[in-house]
């Protein structure tokens, strides 16, 4: 029982950190979530982590909803609840503060510098996660085609992310049928 409570506490603390340091939009949280749940605590395997992120893309909510999946995997429904509340709490607290002190914050050039300083780091981190998810899991030609197609359609045609993920899943099902592998 105490072990279970400890796990819940660990989930809360971990996802508070993810929520607090996820500057630069929802995707910026993915590297933090991966580091904590795959590398540090081994709560999920690489492929389970991709599932958490991918299924999060199918829901109408933001990427951070992956925290719910991870919390559920680790500690059932209470874990899901704790992880979800924790991951969104820092955003809400900081939005409240910003809404009060907006003018002071916006006028300050150092704030701009800090935001711009984080941006390249986020890019590097997302790229790192993309490689670490893709490298062990991508071993067929059709998967490389899916990666390229999804990237191009998202950038050039601004296709809905949820649709792209559903399409990628359909491709996965089709190519796993007997006789379709190549």
């Amino acid at each position, binding site marked *: 029982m105490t072990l279970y409570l400890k796990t819940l506490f660990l989930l809360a603390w971990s996802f508070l950190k993810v*929520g*607090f340091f996820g500057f*630069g*939009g*929802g*995707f910026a949280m*993915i*590297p933090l979530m991966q*580091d904590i749940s795959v590398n540090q605590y081994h709560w999920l395997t690489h492929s*389970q982590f*991709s599932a958490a992120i991918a*299924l999060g*893309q*199918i*829901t*109408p*909510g*933001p990427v*951070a909803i992956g925290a719910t999946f991870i919390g559920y*995997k680790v500690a059932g*429904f209470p874990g899901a609840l704790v992880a*979800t509340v924790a991951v*969104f709490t820092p*955003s*809400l607290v*900081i*939005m*409240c503060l910003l809404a009060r002190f907006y003018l002071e914050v*916006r006028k300050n050039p*150092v704030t701009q510098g800090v*935001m711009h*300083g*984080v*941006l*390249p*780091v*986020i*890019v*590097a981190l*997302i790229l*790192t996660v*993309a490689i670490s*998810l893709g490298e062990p*899991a*991508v071993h*067929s030609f059709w998967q490389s085609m899916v*990666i390229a*197609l999804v*990237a191009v359609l*998202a*950038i050039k045609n601004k296709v*809905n*992310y*949820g649709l*792209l*993920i559903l399409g*990628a899943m359909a491709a*996965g*099902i089709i190519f796993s*049928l007997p006789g379709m592998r190549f």
Partner: protein
Amino acid sequence: MSGVTAGNIQNTSPAGVSRLDVLRVYLKIGTIGFGGGYAVMNLIHAELVEKRQWLTEQRYENMLSLSEMAPGALTVNLLAGVAYRLGGVKTMLLATAALILPSFLLILLLAGFFLAWQHNPLVAGALEGLTAGVVGLMLAVVWELIEKFPNHWYYYATGAVALVLGFFLHVNPIWLVILGAAAGGLKSLASILYRRLKTEPGKDVGA
């Protein structure tokens, strides 16, 4: 009653927006806002600014730039900020919960299904496709973020340094975010100081 108090502080919320209205609209956005990114931003703008006129174009833009400064998903930040303006902290908390609730339930369902069936060949195949799709999306997001870089060598250089530290040396990503923030803050402090030093001797010469 807290709606009245918040109205006094902000005095921006249009009269007659009840907490229930906010919850209803947020639940709607949380249910049909599939796909993230542009699609959801358009939906939010249509619902809050065009259809219900809860905030002006100007206030929407302000709230958007505010949301970019907070960590986490842009859409959640934006909607939380708007709810805070409309009805204070209590409305913000309830409205955000309403926004997240549909996704929360859906992903619990999907997680339960996936974890029970992950070794089924069809589910495993679907996951191979999903992983490829997520990697593709991440590359798209990387591309879009790079396009937001100010056109300056500094950003490409720090990006490259972060890639080396994170990918090859496995430095904890939280430390990298802190380092990047510190470097960016120091850089802007340094440029402020530099400008001051440059203008002061100029004044002396002038005097």
